[in-house]
Structures are given as C-alpha cells and as structure tokens.
C-alpha cells in the first residue's frame, strides 16, 4: 500500500482529483477553487447562485443568494482561506455541483457545502464524491475525525453519511428566526423549538470510516 504524504490545504488546492467508482473507473473530477480560477469565478458563480437558492432550506443560515454575493463569498471567503476547501464537481466537463471541507485543523475537518445542482453522471455519484473527500481528509490532511452537521429531515444525506460510518454525536432542537431577507435556525431548548426537525452533529473517526472503494 503506498504511503500517503501529509498535504496542506494550499497544496490540496493545486491539483484536480479524480473520483472513482467501486470498479475504479473515473466518474467525475473534483476541481479545487484556487487563485488560478479567480478570473473564471464569474462564469460559475451564476449556476452556483441558482443551486444555493434551491438548497437554502438545508442551511442553518439562509438568505437570498445573488451572483454578486456568491462572487464575493468565493473571492473573499473560499479561495484565500487556508482552513477551507471547495471542489467543483465536473462530469465529462460539465459542472454539476460542489462539495468541500471547512474548519480544517490539524485534528479535524467538517463536510461543507454539498450541493448537486445539475443532473448528470451516475445516480450514486455523490456517494463517491463524499467518499473521495473523506479519503483526502484522512489520508492527506491526516485529520483524526470529520464532522457532518445537518438537519434531521435531510435523510438522503444522513443515509449516505451513515453508510460511510458517521455516528450521531449530538442532536439539538431548533428555533427559526426570520427577518425580511434572512433567516436562521438557532439551537435552543426543546420548549423553545418551533420546527419539527433537529440539528444533528455526526462524527466520523478513521477507525469507523467504511470507504466504498
């Protein structure tokens, strides 16, 4: 078995990564957002904005995304960050979504911003995308554990995380607080909860990881 070398976040932002299915065939390519793509940000910010608005119900903090806001987020919060990786997912040169890691430290990382915005590729493509990202985190970033935070009603994501070995670490009731353009789900006591679903933190350790390939 080849010895994996520890890589830093900036190093991982340099190269594309193949996503392989169980049989070893390349089914997608992960392209990291880095300074080399700064001039192209405006091209993919538009579809990303559409996806973000469609998926906003899965995020703890919600707002109306605009292309300008997405560009600013990519340029200022994603690309220069040394604790965050965001990969664009390409299937046969078509951009179909993104997936990443945030809050990366020497000890841990957190799954972040998983959105399949377009149809295309295998139906279980995201299973292998997540599988690949978890391998990067364990084998190259060498973290000891990975967190997944999501709403309890997001059962497709929950199902995938659990098949890969995540276990529930905590569960909190939620209170939805809204103003005209933004909203936030705040962790609260059971008495204060005003939505049916909860906020779940899952955790995956190296020992519990059940890779698909």
């Amino acid at each position, binding site marked *: 078995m080849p010895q994996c070398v520890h890589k830093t976040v900036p190093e991982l932002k340099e190269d594309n990564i193949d996503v392989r299915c169980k049989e070893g065939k390349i089914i997608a390519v992960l392209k990291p957002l880095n300074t080399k793509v700064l001039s192209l940000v405006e091209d993919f910010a538009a579809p990303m904005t559409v996806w973000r608005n*469609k*998926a906003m*119900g*899965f995020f703890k903090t919600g707002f109306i995304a605009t292309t300008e806001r997405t560009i600013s987020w990519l340029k200022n919060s994603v690309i220069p960050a040394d604790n965050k990786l965001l990969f664009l997912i390409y299937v046969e040169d078509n951009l179909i979504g993104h997936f990443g890691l945030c809050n990366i430290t020497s000890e841990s990382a957190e799954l972040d911003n998983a959105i*399949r915005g377009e*149809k295309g590729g295998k*139906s*279980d493509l995201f299973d292998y995308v997540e599988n690949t990202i978890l391998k990067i985190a364990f084998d190259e970033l060498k973290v000891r554990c990975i967190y997944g935070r999501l709403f*309890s*009603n*997001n*059962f*497709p*994501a*929950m*199902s995938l995380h*659990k098949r890969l070995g995540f276990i*529930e670490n905590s569960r909190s009731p939620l209170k939805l607080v809204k103003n005209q353009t933004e909203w936030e789900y705040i962790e609260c006591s059971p008495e204060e909860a005003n939505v*049916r679903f909860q906020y779940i933190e899952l955790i995956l350790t190296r020992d519990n990881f059940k890779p698909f390939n």
Partner: protein
Amino acid sequence: MDVLKILFDSIDELNLDLDSEEKILKDENTVVFGENSGLDSIGLVNFITIIEERLEEETGHFVTIADERALSFEDSPFKTISTLRNYIEMLLNEQQGV
C-alpha cells in the same frame, strides 16, 4: 385511512413545483429513493415533508417518517411508493396500538 391516496395527493402537490420532465408518476412502482429515482435530495425531503403534513391533517398527530429507525432498515422504506406505503401503514398501526 387510504395511505396510497395520501401519497398520490402528495405527488400532485410536489409536481406543482417540478418542471414537466421532472414530474413523478403516480404509480406504486415509482422509485422514490436510490438508483432510478427522478427526485434529487431537495425533492425527496420536500416530498416527505408534504406527506408528513398530510398525515398530520388526516390523523391529528405528527408522524415522523424519515428518522433513525427508517434509515436502519436494510431495505429502505423509501425505495418505492409501495414500500413507503407499507412503512407508513406500519407506523400508523403502531401509533394506534394495533
């Protein structure tokens, strides 16, 4: 209670928000979750939410369909409309102490 009718009514409601090529068929064999499902994650979660709301209207009780237990089955209860109906009927029977 006619659970299949609730599921079909829920499909009608869900389809209102879907483009014509994305609309899902009112058929017991329609695949809901997994390979060959026409629904993406967002569609799936919306569909389950609609069903839970309709069940609450019918029964007066909130029935959680997608929870830890549902995910623990080796054969997913969300696989098709038919398996989902069976699972919901089981939940309702349990709730009624049958």
